[in-house]
């Protein structure tokens, strides 16, 4: 890296020129093939016999404008639920994962419960959990039963907590035993070892899959609408029923994609950074 004054030899100059030419050819080729595929797709869709009807019932600008405020209002519910549920599901997942790593006979019941929880709630379909929570719990007629938002949110947290617990556990188990040995040899207790040595490394390693599950949660929070609340998808459904036109669904889809973009971008960035870190080491 010190050769600032170095002039490349003729051979090296020729290599650079060759590589540049090759790079330009690749870009042109990529642009060309993209254009061909794009044109083919457009021709296939717009040239199809039913295109005019589909265009009218899925891509109507007037109806999109008309339904937009209601769908956006529904989306606001999605966003609020997402933030609360993501934070609490991550906390529940981390807590459960740590419980599952506890050793010793005293912790057997705790460990067994944590294991049963992750098995059960990864297996049960989310929709059923929402029904059980939102309709089953109020059915008990207990005093102080929270509203349907809280119950639906709880169903999401409990289900996603089980998935996230397994991601965290994979991270904890990926930390090499020699790290534990080093920490314990310094006199750190099991708790201190987990808190200062194992968990920081584990969470860093599983950050990409954790964020990925959060993106999935973003789409699933809308399922609370099954219990009554009007989220973006439900709002779109109502608007669709009013006009016999499916455009509101497209509006909702576009909004969901826009909402997911930042999170997906963060996920990619974190993954890339983690990969670079790993390559830098050793």
């Amino acid at each position, binding site marked *: 890296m010190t050769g600032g004054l170095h002039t490349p030899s003729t051979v090296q100059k020729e290599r650079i020129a060759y590589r540049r030419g090759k790079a330009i050819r690749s870009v042109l080729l990529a642009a060309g093939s993209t254009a061909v595929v794009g044109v083919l797709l457009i021709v296939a869709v717009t040239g199809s016999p039913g295109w005019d009807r589909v265009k009218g019932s899925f891509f109507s600008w007037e109806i999109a404008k008309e339904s937009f405020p209601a769908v956006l209002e529904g989306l606001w519910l999605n966003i609020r639920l997402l933030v609360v549920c993501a934070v609490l599901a991550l906390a529940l997942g981390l807590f459960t994962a740590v419980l599952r790593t506890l050793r010793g006979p005293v912790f057997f019941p705790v460990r067994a419960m944590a294991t049963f929880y992750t098995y059960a709630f990864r297996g049960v379909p989310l929709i059923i959990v929402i029904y059980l929570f939102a309709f089953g719990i109020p059915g008990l007629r207990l005093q102080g039963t929270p509203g349907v938002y809280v119950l639906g949110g709880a169903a999401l947290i409990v289900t996603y907590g089980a998935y996230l617990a397994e991601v965290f556990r994979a991270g904890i188990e990926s930390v090499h035993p*020699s*790290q534990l*040995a*080093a*920490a*314990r*040899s*310094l*006199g*750190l*207790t099991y708790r*201190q070892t987990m808190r*200062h*040595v194992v968990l*920081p*490394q584990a969470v*860093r390693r599983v950050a990409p899959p954790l964020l990925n599950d959060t993106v999935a949660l973003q789409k699933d929070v809308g399922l609370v609408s099954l219990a009554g609340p009007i989220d973006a998808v439900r709002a779109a459904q109502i608007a669709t029923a009013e006009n016999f036109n499916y455009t509101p669904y497209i509006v909702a889809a576009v909004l969901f994609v826009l909402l997911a973009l930042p999170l997906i971008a963060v996920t990619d960035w974190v993954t890339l950074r983690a990969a670079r870190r790993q390559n*830098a*080491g*050793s």
Partner: protein
Amino acid sequence: MLLEIKAVRKVFGTGVVLDDLSLDVGEHQVVALIGASGSGKSTLLRCVNLLEQIDDGAIHLDGEDITDPRVDPDKVRQRIGMVFQSYNLFPHMSVLDNITLAPTRVHNKALSIAKDQAMEWLNRVGLADKSLSYPDRLSGGQQQRVAIVRALVNSPRLLLLDEVTSALDPELVGEVLTMIRELKGEGMTMVLATHEMGFARQVADKVVFLDGGRVLESGPPEQVLGEPKEPRTRQFLARIIEAGRL
């Protein structure tokens, strides 16, 4: 005796790794454990640090039976420092954080005091400029010296060194060995498992040859390495010489 290992037995599955092994280490003494891979050197060190549970016998530190199940292993490990073959620094912490973790969390020292102390040590070993670096930016020799400092800041009664130079490039071995030699000069009690016979001869007060989980031969380095009595010891040393490591 600072450390007394009495008839210790350790079994992994069906394999007997330590078999009725006894060994005494006096204060300020340096004991080198030598022997082929699988002879039980590392396992013995891990048993002394209670990272492995022994299956029979006893280990006494300063007269206290540390293998008594009623003894809190965390308290025992606070008195013993250990350095590993693969350094085992915490990769998510800077050099300084690696060193100050135990003093602040285990020994409840104020962070500023722990930092000063850590910097003093880093200055001594010539790594002060690396204090804020992460372990993956350091050479193997530098990492191992940080690992030794990390063990020493807790002022251990006993330092266990498990093949601390085995993972290092030959030209980096010297800097770590120099550090250990200095520690001996200061009277640190050490038990080291090593393949560096030349170093064992220089620094050890006693060399112990382990074979099949037993002490086959032990004594002053000149005797064990120079005029070994046992044919197995002679055979082992001959192979080491052949490999060019003596």
